């Protein structure tokens, strides 16, 4: 068994990794994990004032600090019934654009592009692409400048408060932002053309669900009071739990989420998929020019979507400044008296939907719930990692797995501080199937399903084991005994199942492997015999906890008995399952 570990993901913001374990012809595990320890931010704010909360929570992440600030402030304003004037929202939007420009330009040019051009980092890339590297740095600097002018500092600025701003920027500062934005336009077009025509590999490709904020007034944008899912579902902000449904996984300090039991993705690609039709002007024209079916199922296109959003921001900046300049009297901070309430703030961080929810009692925070984009993406990162690794393995391109995993994680632009560094690929001789099996049995009692033919030598291992298990009183059936009726009840039961089958994994006869069913599903060679069974509407979580227990046969010929090696394997399995 091989393990591919990218233990410290380079060029992502923070500290996390991804590991893949390869057992013969199957990928037996892909895990995206966050090395960073717990910060318990949601607990730190309990008993604090709303003002303290909005200055503490942005510290979750430096690169999304403005988004966290906005999500926190919007949640508090909803909880405490504070309505800010239109002008305040305009200035907030301008500030938010600063973060999008800074984060997207850093990501596409510095973190992602070196992958596609074959450099270890952007500085090395500068030897050949000096112009791009230099101007991209200036673009990033410009985004930072906007945040500094409006929020007080590049990172963790405090000028944004509940009800408004501590200080309003001067007309000169706003005008400078507008003129500078216009100067960047030629480079912005270049950026869109570059990233929309990059040669993105077609592995992995698979449909997924996308979620993002639904901005008001049929416009494109980065906040709203509803969530839009790609299947058309709309969720009001206070019902956000319908979408996120978080759960704890042992390998990461960021909790994972699924929607209707399926992984989903958030981020620039989700926004462009869900809202691209709303893009106007040049961004709309570019969307219609470049958008195609790959964008709907290939996470690597996130970089193209980010480039499109850079253009959107640069077109929006001058408009925003013009609107802001029409204001004669800058608004005061809206004060409030409310001491109780509950509310949610939805914002699009550069890397996707960000949710803050608070409960305030007697002027102090009593409950806090913060759901970060990277945590929501974690399940899909693992799923796409699995698809890519298994597909490459099937094609005999195992050596590509490590880099591909790296690129997938990076495409999601995770800010690992979302709680979360890299890829590791491990090959194992034999999976630690005993421990895994014991763990599966500990969590739920699975149903064993045997496949095979006892008149075909080692192919009889499945049915033979099932017979023994039945004698032991363990829940087991042969696939031949299954009909539509009992498959139906299995589909509805949420019970995990374990297929037992002879599996030619190119190993020593009698070798045992335990492979997640998802890997089997994504494989072009492994899935045939299970196909009629798993076509049924099993839920993702049921499939995710189900496995294929494969035994390497010595020979599959017409004979009634198992080879000595497979008989030994049979005995090992029985010993293990008995206790």
């Amino acid at each position: 068994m091989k393990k591919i570990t990218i233990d410290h993901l380079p060029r992502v913001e923070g500290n996390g990794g991804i590991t893949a374990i390869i057992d013969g012809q199957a990928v037996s595990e892909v895990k995206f994990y966050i090395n960073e320890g717990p910060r318990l931010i949601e607990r730190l704010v309990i008993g604090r004032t709303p003002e303290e909360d909005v200055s503490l929570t942005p510290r979750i992440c430096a690169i999304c600090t403005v988004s966290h600030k906005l999500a926190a402030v919007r949640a508090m304003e909803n909880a405490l019934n504070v309505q800010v004037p239109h002008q305040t929202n305009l200035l907030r939007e301008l500030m938010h654009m600063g973060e999008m420009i800074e984060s997207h330009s850093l990501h596409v040019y510095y973190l992602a592009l070196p992958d596609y051009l074959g450099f270890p980092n952007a500085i090395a890339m500068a030897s050949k692409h000096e112009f791009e590297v230099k101007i991209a740095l200036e673009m990033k600097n410009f985004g930072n400048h906007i945040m500094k002018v409006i929020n007080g500092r590049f990172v963790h600025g405090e000028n944004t408060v509940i009800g408004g701003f501590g200080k309003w920027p001067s007309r000169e500062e706003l005008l400078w932002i507008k003129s500078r934005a216009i100067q960047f336009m030629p480079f912005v077009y270049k950026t869109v053309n570059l990233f929309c025509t990059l040669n993105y590999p077609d592995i992995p490709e698979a449909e997924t669900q996308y979620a993002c904020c639904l901005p008001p007034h049929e416009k494109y944008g980065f906040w709203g009071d509803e969530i839009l899912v790609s299947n058309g579902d709309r969720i009001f902000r206070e019902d956000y739990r319908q979408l996120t449904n978080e759960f704890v996984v042992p390998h990461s300090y960021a909790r994972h989420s699924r929607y209707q039991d399926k992984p989903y993705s958030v981020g620039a690609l989700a926004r462009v998929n869900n809202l691209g039709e709303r893009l106007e002007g040049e961004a709309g024209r570019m969307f219609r020019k470049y958008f195609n079916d790959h964008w709907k199922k290939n996470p690597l296109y996130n970089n193209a979507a980010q480039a499109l959003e850079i253009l959107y921001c640069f077109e929006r900046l001058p408009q925003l400044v013009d609107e802001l300049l029409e204001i004669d009297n800058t608004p005061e901070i809206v004060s409030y008296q409310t001491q109780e309430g509950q509310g949610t703030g939805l914002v699009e961080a550069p890397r996707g939907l960000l949710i803050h929810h608070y409960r305030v009692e007697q002027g102090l925070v009593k409950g806090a719930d913060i759901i970060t984009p990277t945590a929501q993406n974690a399940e899909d990162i693992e799923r796409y990692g699995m698809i890519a690794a298994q597909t490459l393995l099937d094609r005999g391109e195992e050596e590509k797995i490590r880099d591909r995993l790296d690129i997938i994680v990076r495409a999601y632009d995770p800010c690992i501080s979302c709680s979360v560094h890299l890829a590791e690929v491990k090959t194992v001789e034999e999976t630690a199937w005993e421990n895994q099996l014991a763990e599966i049995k500990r969590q739920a009692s699975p149903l064993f399903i045997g496949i095979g033919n006892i008149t075909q030598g080692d192919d009889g291992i499945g049915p033979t084991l099932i017979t023994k298990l039945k004698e032991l009183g363990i829940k087991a059936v042969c696939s031949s005994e299954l009909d539509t009726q009992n498959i139906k009840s299995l589909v509805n039961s949420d019970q995990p199942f374990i297929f037992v089958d002879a599996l030619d994994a190119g190993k020593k006869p009698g070798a045992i492997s335990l492979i997640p069913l998802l890997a089997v599903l994504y494989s072009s060679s492994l899935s045939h015999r299970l196909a009629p069974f798993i076509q049924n509407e099993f839920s993702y979580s049921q499939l995710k906890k189900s496995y294929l227990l494969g035994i390497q046969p010595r020979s599959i010929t017409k004979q009634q008995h198992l080879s000595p090696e497979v008989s030994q394997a049979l005995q090992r399995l029985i010993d293990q399952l008995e206790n």
Partner: protein
Amino acid sequence: MKGKKLKIGIYELTGCAGDALMILNCEKELPAIFQAVDIQSFLMAKSDNIDDELDVALVEGSVTTEKEVEELKDIRKRSKIVVALGLCATVGGIQARFQDPQKWQENFRQVYGETKMELPAVVSKPIDAYIKVDFYLPGCPISKEQFLNFFTRVVKGAPPESYPQPVCVSCKYKENDCLLKNGLFCLGPLTADGCGAVCPSHNLPCVGCWGPVQGGNWTSEFYLLQDKGFSREFIKKKMANFAGTKLSEFWKQFDRRD
């Protein structure tokens, strides 16, 4: 710096990656930095990283897992100079509030339940809880100017400047109206200066994000704030937000006396 370039490593433990990001935010100086020194490891910026002997290690973030304890000790062993970068590394960060192990446990369980985590966590601490630190550069996050100043000196082999004054000093230079005098709760007198009094210059009180200033007169500030009508509880909480582990001694003595 004759001939040989200094070997530098930039490491991130648990935090928001803000200090590493602030280094990347030195857009104009970045190419020069990469030329002046040999950056051996900087996860956020490059993938060809090597973990070898270093002249200077810059460490951001607080220590929150057993694995990080090991990593940190390894960094110390390999490096001539270790610098604590940012509030998390210098004082433990905002996440260092729960120092009492039992309290920490309770809060941990509220978030992660009973799941047994693969990377065992520990109570959040600044890096000097585990290793000797040569220099501190506080801030949440660090400021660009302070960093470049610090970095240039270290590269030239000069000792870095220290910043012993509170935020109030910069605030006075900027001729701001004092917020404390106007009855607002401002932590300027107790907070290390490094930002140039940004918040007061935006009409907003300092929340203390550079951490406690060396030699701050905590007791007198405490009474001053009490006289202004703030409750003991309120003051304590506000002071604790960005002080990490650094005020625990003060509170022990203060509570005993009071």
